[in-house]
C-alpha cells in the first residue's frame, strides 16, 4: 500500500445499517432463510437471506459458464435465401459493425453482450470459490465490490429480444435458421437470474477478512503468517 489509508471506525452493532436509497438508520432483524427485510420508509429490499447460498450459487455459476462458452462458439442465427447461406455468432455481429466503420457501437455491443456477461460469471465464480474458504481472503471483497457493475452492463436478455425482433424482420425476405447459440442464450438468461437470486452478498461480507485489518497486518508484520494474500 503506497499511501496511508484513513479508515472509518465501524459502528459497534453490525446489524445497524442505513438504507442506501433513503439513508434511514435501522437495525436489520435476524432473518430466516428465504425471508427478506425492507426499509420501512422507502420500501427498498435491504437484505434477503438465502438458503445454502454459496453451494447453490456455485452450481448455477458453473452451469452459466458452460452455457456461455457454447453460446459464444457456435452460430446464433443463419439464413438461406435463393440458394445462398449466411450465419453469424454473437461476436460476429460486433465484428461486422467494427469492419463497417461503426467501431464505437461495435465495442458497446461486444461489451454488453460478451465481455460484461463473462465478467458477471467469472467474477461470481471467483467470489464463491474464495468465499467457501474458512477465512475468505481480501480479494474476494474487492471482486464483490465491483460485481454489481458487471451485472448492470451484462445485457444478454436484452440482446435476446433484439435477436428475436431481427429474426422476425429477416423472416420476411429469407428462411431463418435459429442456431444452437440462440437456445443456449435463452437458457443462460434463466440460469443467470437464478445465480443472482441464489447469492447472498451479506453472508460473504460477514465472513470476509477486513481491509483495515489487512492494511494493519501488512504494515505490522511482513514476515510470517501471510500465505493467502494475492
Amino acid at each position, binding site marked *: 500500500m503506497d499511501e496511508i*489509508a*484513513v*479508515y*472509518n*471506525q*465501524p*459502528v459497534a452493532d453490525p446489524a445497524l*445499517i*442505513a438504507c*442506501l*436509497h*433513503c*439513508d*434511514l*438508520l*435501522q437495525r436489520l432483524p435476524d432473518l430466516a432463510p428465504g425471508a427478506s427485510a425492507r426499509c*420501512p420508509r*422507502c420500501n*427498498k429490499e435491504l437484505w434477503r437471506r438465502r438458503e445454502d447460498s454459496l453451494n447453490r450459487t456455485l452450481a448455477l455459476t458453473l452451469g452459466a459458464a458452460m452455457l456461455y462458452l457454447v453460446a459464444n462458439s457456435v452460430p446464433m*442465427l443463419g*439464413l438461406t*435465401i435463393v440458394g*445462398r447461406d*449466411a*450465419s*453469424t455468432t454473437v461476436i*460476429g*455481429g*460486433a465484428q*461486422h*459493425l467494427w469492419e*463497417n466503420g*461503426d467501431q*464505437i*457501437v461495435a465495442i*458497446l*455491443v461486444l461489451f454488453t453482450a460478451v465481455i460484461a456477461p463473462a465478467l458477471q460469471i467469472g467474477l461470481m465464480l471467483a467470489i464463491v470459490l474464495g468465499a467457501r474458504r474458512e477465512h475468505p481472503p*481480501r480479494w474476494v*471483497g*474487492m471482486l*464483490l*465490490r465491483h460485481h454489481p457493475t458487471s451485472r448492470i452492463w451484462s*445485457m444478454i436478455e*436484452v*440482446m435476446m*429480444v*433484439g435477436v428475436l*425482433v*431481427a429474426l*422476425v*424482420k*429477416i423472416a420476411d*425476405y429469407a428462411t431463418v435458421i435459429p442456431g444452437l447459440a440462440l437456445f443456449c442464450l435463452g437458457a443462460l438468461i434463466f440460469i443467470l437470474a437464478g445465480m443472482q437470486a441464489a447469492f447472498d*452478498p*451479506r453472508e460473504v*461480507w460477514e465472513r470476509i477478512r*477486513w*481491509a*483495515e*485489518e489487512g492494511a494493519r497486518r501488512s504494515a505490522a508484520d511482513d514476515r510470517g503468517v501471510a500465505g493467502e494474500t494475492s
Partner: protein
Amino acid sequence: MSATAMTAMQLGLQSCEGCGLLSRPASGENEGRCPRCDEELTFRKPASFQRTWAYLIGAAICYIPANLLPVLTTTTAAGAESDTILQGVVLLWSPTGWPLSLIVLIASIMIPSAKILALVYLLITAQRGSVENNEQRVRLYRTIEFIGRWSMVDVFVDTFTAALIQLQPLMSVEPGPGLLFFAAVVVLTMLAVESFDPRLIWDSASTKEVSHA
C-alpha cells in the same frame, strides 16, 4: 420504528455502497475508507446533481440526431433505402408483427424519452428541496433504473440484421449514423441514473423533521 426517523448523515455516519457497512469517519475527516471493503466513503455520491445533469444534457442532445438520422440502410438492386428508428417501427407493424413493433416502440422511443423526463423531474424536485411524494419519487427512480437497459434492444436488432443480411449484390443492410447517437443516449442515460443519489430525495424531509422536532 420510533417516531423520530434518523438518517445516518444526521448522526455523522456513512454507509458503504460497496458492502453496506455503517461506519464513522475519523474526527476532523470527511472522507475515509470502508474498513471492511476498502471503498472510498462519502455521505452522498460525489457531485451527484452536477454529474447527473451533465450526463442527462448529453443524452438529450444525442436524442435529436438519434431520432432524425437513419439507423439502418438497406441496399437492394432497386436502390438504397434508409430508415430511422420510427420508420423501423412502422415497417414492422403488420397484422402478425405488431407485438414486436410495439416492443421496439416502447424500448427505443418511449423508454429513453420517459427516462430523460423522469430524471429531470427527480433532479429539479430534489434540488428545490421538495418533501412531497418521496415514496413515489424513489419508486420512479427504481423503475427507470430497472427498465433503462431495455433501450439497448434496437442496437442489437440493427447489429444482427446488418451482420446477417450481407447478400451482395441481391441485398445488404448497413447500420446508419443514427445508431451511434442512439447508443450514446442509452449509455448516457444509464450513467445518469447511476450518478443520481436517491438519498438526495429524502434529505430535505430529514432536515425538516429535525427542525420541527
